[in-house]
């Protein structure tokens, strides 16, 4: 049934359908509406779960760690500073191979403090061992929660669903929420083989040294690689059952005969598609590729999609300060390994909530050179209104 829902509400409703037994959270904008809704559901008796108000995000992450280790399905959500405060625990959850699911309501990181959306927060966790799915719409956010639990529990890997703060969390869209029985059918109850249980005492989180530590990391890497077909398969299965798919790892748009392809993540891709349509109408052979699954990084799939492109642009909402575009750098490496030598233009924009309007995105398509010779990235042009000409100087 379709309902007009704020992104946060849609996510909370979808999480609730997954029957989490423990929900722990600490308030931070723009994530707070998600946990407020879950708290209300628990208070109303609509969701049978322990709702734990943590003393910090560090505590919230630790609570869901403990809950999953004890065999319960758990949920938490955060953003920005909160995600960074969780960092030590998030690495630990991944190392312990606990299938925790969380939402990152993507927000800029201070200083200067800024509550609006970019991807700097979750990109900082890219090496932590979490699967990261970047969603485009409220519908996809809700559906991805249900997929996320299935993926996490099948792969024994934690999953972070990344949704743009405000652009999604605070925006109302019609969302089709599945019925409980259908979700129960798709997502079986959680049985954790390594759960803490006196009848089968196990030691979790002991010390490791040089003779075996690397094997743990190697096993995590292998599990991440193995997760790629799982993510695709569950998206396809979701499509069969609910009639909606979200691209699995990647979602292509008008890549047929496309000479120029713009790659990006998250909610900005809706505007990108509009711009692609406009430029196609003008006779330009452009297309778009949405990277839904950033971790594991689908290097081979990307190379396949981009093998025919003559010009590749990555527009991303985070920067590795001192290096440049993160997705662009990884894409360059992936293409190079695949023997594709097409240069990748790295464009960084939308930081701290700055609007990536269709006009800005069109300008990104039309710019053909980096700012200076040898530059590995450029910033997107500033706000452009239709009345103004595109600025030549994009610094």
């Amino acid at each position: 049934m379709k309902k007009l829902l704020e992104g946060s509400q849609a996510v909370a409703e979808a999480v609730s359908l997954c029957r989490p037994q423990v929900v722990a959270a600490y308030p931070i904008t723009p994530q707070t509406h998600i946990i407020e809704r879950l708290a209300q559901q628990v208070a109303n008796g609509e969701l049978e779960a322990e709702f734990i108000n943590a003393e910090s995000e560090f505590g919230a992450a630790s609570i869901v760690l403990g809950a999953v280790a004890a065999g319960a399905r758990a949920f938490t959500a955060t953003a920005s500073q909160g995600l960074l405060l969780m960092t030590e625990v998030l690495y630990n959850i991944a190392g312990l191979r606990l299938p925790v699911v969380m939402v990152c309501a993507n927000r800029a990181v201070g200083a200067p403090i800024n509550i609006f959306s970019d991807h700097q927060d979750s990109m900082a966790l890219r090496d932590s061992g979490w699967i990261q799915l970047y969603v485009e719409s409220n519908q996809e956010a809700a559906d991805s929660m249900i997929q996320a639990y299935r993926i996490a529990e099948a792969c024994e890997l934690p999953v972070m669903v990344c949704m743009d703060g405000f652009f999604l969390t605070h925006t109302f869209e019609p969302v089709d929420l599945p019925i409980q029985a259908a979700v129960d059918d798709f997502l079986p109850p959680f049985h954790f083989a390594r759960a803490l249980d006196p009848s089968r005492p196990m030691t979790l989180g002991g010390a490791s040294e040089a003779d075996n530590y690397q094997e743990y990391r190697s096993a995590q890497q292998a599990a991440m690689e193995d997760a790629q077909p799982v993510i695709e398969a569950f998206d396809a299965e979701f499509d069969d059952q609910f009639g909606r798919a979200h691209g699995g790892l990647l979602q292509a748009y008008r890549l047929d005969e496309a000479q120029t392809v713009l790659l990006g993540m998250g909610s900005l891709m809706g505007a990108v598609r509009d711009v692609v349509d406009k430029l196609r109408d003008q006779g330009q052979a452009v297309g778009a590729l949405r990277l839904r699954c950033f971790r594991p990084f689908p290097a081979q799939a990307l190379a396949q999609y981009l093998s025919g492109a003559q010009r590749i642009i990555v527009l991303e909402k985070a920067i590795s300060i001192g290096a440049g575009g993160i997705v662009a750098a990884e894409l360059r490496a992936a293409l190079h390994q695949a023997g594709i030598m097409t240069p990748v233009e790295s464009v960084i924009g939308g930081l701290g909530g700055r609007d990536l309007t269709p006009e800005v995105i069109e300008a990104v398509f039309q710019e053909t050179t980096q700012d200076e010779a040898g530059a590995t990235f450029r910033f997107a042009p500033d706000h452009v209104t239709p009345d103004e000409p595109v600025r030549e100087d994009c610094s």
Partner: protein
Amino acid sequence: MDKRDTFRHNVLTSGHRACSGCGEAMAARMVTDLIGPDAIYINATGCLQVFTTHNQQSAWQAPWIHSVFANAAAVASGVEAALRAKGKDTPVVVQAGDGGTFDIGLQCLSGMIERGHDVLFVCYDNEAYMNTGVQRSSSTPHAVRTTTSPPGRLSQGKHHLKKDVISIIAAHHMPYAATATIAYFPDLKAKVEKAMRIQGPRFLQILSPCPLGWAHDSALSVTVSRLAVETGLFPLVELEHGELIGVMRLAEQKPVEEYLRPQGRFKHLFGTKTGAVELRHLQALADARIRRYGLLDADTQWDTARAMQSARHGRGGYASSMPASEEVKNDA
């Protein structure tokens, strides 16, 4: 519980890698065998975690988890919430050192207590960061030498006072908080057993001498921890809902020097004028604690059943303000 039964469980088995005379290993063995294997144990980072789970070996015969240094109380909150959601009442026990309790773990501990989780939090207090090589913590007493509070021309060891963590914990109005040491096993046993009968957050601070960090003969761990009590520097107390309900009274007060002399961490205080000033300061701290908790008061309204029980061992007396009838009921 029958005396012979105390160590039947072997929750913490032999073969771990603690130093000889390790007070924490003794305390953990006492606590975990009193609680038994039908519990879930959460460990903060520290000596106990390292010496019991060295490189893919485990000395634990009960479900045990270690996550990171600061979060043991929050992990325990999650474990307890999960058990509640599943309708199970398996006891949940945290073990942490003073770093994981007084310093880096205090915020998670406070949250766990405030939310009323049914968890026993045990702090093995050895008064410094021993696992990293004896650095000062907020539990380190005044004037102690550690590697980060070294005595020198301008210093007589740690400048600041030991944090009064039991008062901070008790101020949460929690059901039960107590201090204990490895030197008084009947007292420690009574407190662990009492804690396990109570619902809600409970806290035990167990003074656990570290021969390496305190620089005393490893054969003296029990003696030194007894002297900490007998000098008044480490009062043994019980608090319920923030109120002091019992103390172990002292038959006589021993001078702090008797406690300080066997320990190399106080060696710099002897034989100098500035050291003598600090010794007087430490004696004054002991005196103040004795006055605060009435450790020498011959208060006749207190029930003396436990005092007599402990007196058999010639270790002072245990006094309680609880009525005798309630005492009997609780011990049943």
